[in-house]
């Protein structure tokens, strides 16, 4: 077996692995950012879950505590 003859197949395999892993990492990273932006946007508009206080409420509470 000549390593040089098969180098193209080896390089193509590693390039595919980098592309697939890169795509997965990009997917989870970009998706995380998108969800954070959407949540922040909803909180800014005052839409919050009943179990967690809104960002603005939290800020007011923190300000009260400091005072």
């Amino acid at each position, binding site marked *: *077996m*000549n*390593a040089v*003859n*098969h*180098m193209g*197949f*080896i390089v*193509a*395999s*590693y390039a*595919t*692995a980098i592309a*697939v*892993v890169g*795509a*997965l*990492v990009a*997917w*989870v*990273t970009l*998706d*995380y950012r998108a*969800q*954070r932006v*959407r*949540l922040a946007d*909803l909180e800014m*508009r005052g*839409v*919050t*879950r009943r179990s967690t206080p809104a960002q603005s409420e939290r800020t007011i509470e923190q300000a009260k505590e400091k005072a």
Partner: protein
Amino acid sequence: MAIADLANPTRFLKFANRTIPWLSGLTVIVFAYGIDQAMLAPDDYQQGATVKIMFLHVPSAWLGMLGWGLMSVAALGTLVWRHPLADVAAKAAAPIGAAFTLLCLVTGSLWGRPEWGTYWVWDARLTSELVLLLLYLGVIALWRTVEDPSRAARAAAILSLVGAIDLPIIKFSVDWWNTLHQGSSVFRVGGSTIDSSILIPLFIMAAAFTLLFFTLHLAAMRNEILRRRVRTLRLMQATAVS
């Protein structure tokens, strides 16, 4: 923190936020070491330099199956205990498992051309692996088609359990049928047939890929929990407006 505490999505998010950076760092370190060892490994006496493709192909194959196994266990959590985190775990695992299965098929093809003289044959191992990829695509399509997450979860859980029958078929296909694909050589009765100079780098690469799988899975689960929160808030907003 007890494992039972992680069943709460808010606590799970805290755990994921703390764990993901450490797991990512560990994954990079193990990958760097694994790739170094894989490149230093000698050529195989039969395969020559193409054995280096095996350091990608074998872990991808294992993780493609692990992904579906994880989805099957999560499916029980959905159908029996109706646990919301089980749905989240199953949904998050599907694209990752599909990606590893695709990588397994592509690297296998690229290895097959110089070794077998063909990119593809319809032998039992290759075909059952292709079926696994199609099952993954089916379950992803199901999640995307059904809008209500709990209904989608039940449908996906049933498909996951039915599809789990493909896992033993993949594993034992090389024993049950005459295949061009080689028989088991790592985990087999009587020990591995692979020399330690190749087996050790293979295990290090498998550990690196497994760490990558769980890091990505944890991150994808975190995203899915946030996505459901966004959905709930939008529904609340829509209800308030109407």
